[in-house]
């Protein structure tokens, strides 16, 4: 929605976009090329449905704002996105494990899929790429989308213009909450607030999951005493409460937990049985997949 006045420095104001991406290296994620105008509305409708886990679909209307002529990108985004600000990304460091899909760490939490909300500036289209800057008020991040980038499905990017500006506020609130929960959990035992940051009302916000989770240590842990079992139970539960796992429909496979904690499956089963009895988790598609019972 253009709002700049002629008497002010020429500074085209573009509507803020939600940018979702999985940036393997910091700062230069890749984006899909803009779809043709006819496909934009359909893609936006699909995008609305895809993003319903984070926002109410009613907040993303397929119709384009007439002034949003510079917001053509419509792509599917990965599920399980973490709301972040540009400053948090700038302060993040890459994960020491270097595993694909978990490229950097924010507030002690490994993050692969992120969500940004900001104002697009200075879009430049070239033959080989499209570049723009995203300004969310905490910093400016340059984006480059290579036109012929052969990205695999794990690096899909979704960009959608904002039509309800309450999304801007909601995003920042989610960033604050995520930051608070992640930094609190580093001090003591993970605390779950149990309170929703969403606001009931005509806007119909749907709460995006903001679980508390700790970065799992890759070092193997010796289980001996009851105290160590408690630590294992906590570690297993933290994995289930990671944002990506909470938003995953099928949850987490036991083997994945065993691989991350470098422990035998039998030990993981014990912890899972404990949490299942306590009501913390539940099985999904089979006896190997479990999911946290808490959405936030």
């Amino acid at each position, binding site marked *: *929605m253009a*709002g*700049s*006045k002629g*008497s*002010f*420095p020429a*500074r085209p*104001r573009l*509507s803020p976009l939600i940018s979702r991406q999985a940036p393997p290296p910091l*700062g230069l994620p890749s984006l899909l090329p803009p779809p043709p105008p006819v496909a934009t509305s359909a893609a936006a409708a699909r995008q609305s449905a895809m993003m319903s886990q984070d926002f109410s679909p009613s907040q993303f209307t397929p119709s384009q704002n007439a002034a949003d002529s510079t917001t053509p990108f419509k792509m599917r985004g990965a599920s399980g996105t973490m709301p*972040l*600000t*540009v*400053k*948090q*990304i*700038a*302060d993040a460091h890459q994960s020491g494990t270097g595993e694909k899909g978990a490229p950097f760490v924010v507030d002690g939490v490994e993050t692969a899929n992120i969500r940004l909300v900001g104002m697009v500036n200075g879009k430049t289209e070239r033959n080989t790429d499209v570049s723009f800057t995203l300004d969310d*008020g*905490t*910093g*400016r*991040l340059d984006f480059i989308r290579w036109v012929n980038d052969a990205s695999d499905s794990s690096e899909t990017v979704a960009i959608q213009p904002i039509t*309800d*500006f*309450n999304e801007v*506020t*909601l995003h*920042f*609130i989610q*960033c*604050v909450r995520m*930051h*608070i929960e992640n*930094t609190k959990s580093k001090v003591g035992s993970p605390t779950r607030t149990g309170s929703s940051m969403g*606001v009931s*009302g*005509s*806007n119909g916000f749907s709460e995006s999951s903001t679980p508390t989770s700790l970065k799992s240590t890759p070092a193997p842990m010796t289980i001996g005493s009851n105290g160590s079992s408690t630590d294992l139970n906590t570690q297993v539960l933290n994995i289930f409460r990671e944002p990506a796992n909470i938003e995953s429909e099928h949850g987490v496979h036991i083997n994945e937990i065993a691989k991350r904690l470098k422990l035998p499956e039998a030990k993981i089963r014990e912890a899972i049985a404990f949490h299942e009895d306590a009501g913390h988790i539940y099985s999904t598609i089979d006896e190997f997949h479990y999911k946290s019972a808490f959405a936030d």
Partner: protein
Amino acid sequence: MDASGLPAFANGEILKTMVGRRVRTVVQVQHNEGGVLVGQSTDGHQLTIRGATDVPVSHFMEVFGTAESDQSICAEVCTDFGNSFGEIWRPISCSCLVLNNRYMIPWTM
């Protein structure tokens, strides 16, 4: 990342401490005459926005600009947020204080 000149989130109360700095805020338009707009901030203060675009009365407007005084902003960019913005705008008043003063890590100041 370019962090220079980033605007600080402000409401009427915080604006007093931001004179001369770039700020961003949301106001509800009360009246607009000749490029001078008067709006109500999230915490109930009357703010004067100079150089604002024509935003209808009762609409919410986001302003990026420079704080000229504790009650006026010289606007650089304005965006009409419409009249549906506001279900959660009052908590923004508290959020500004929280964001700027305590949980500054996600934000730069």
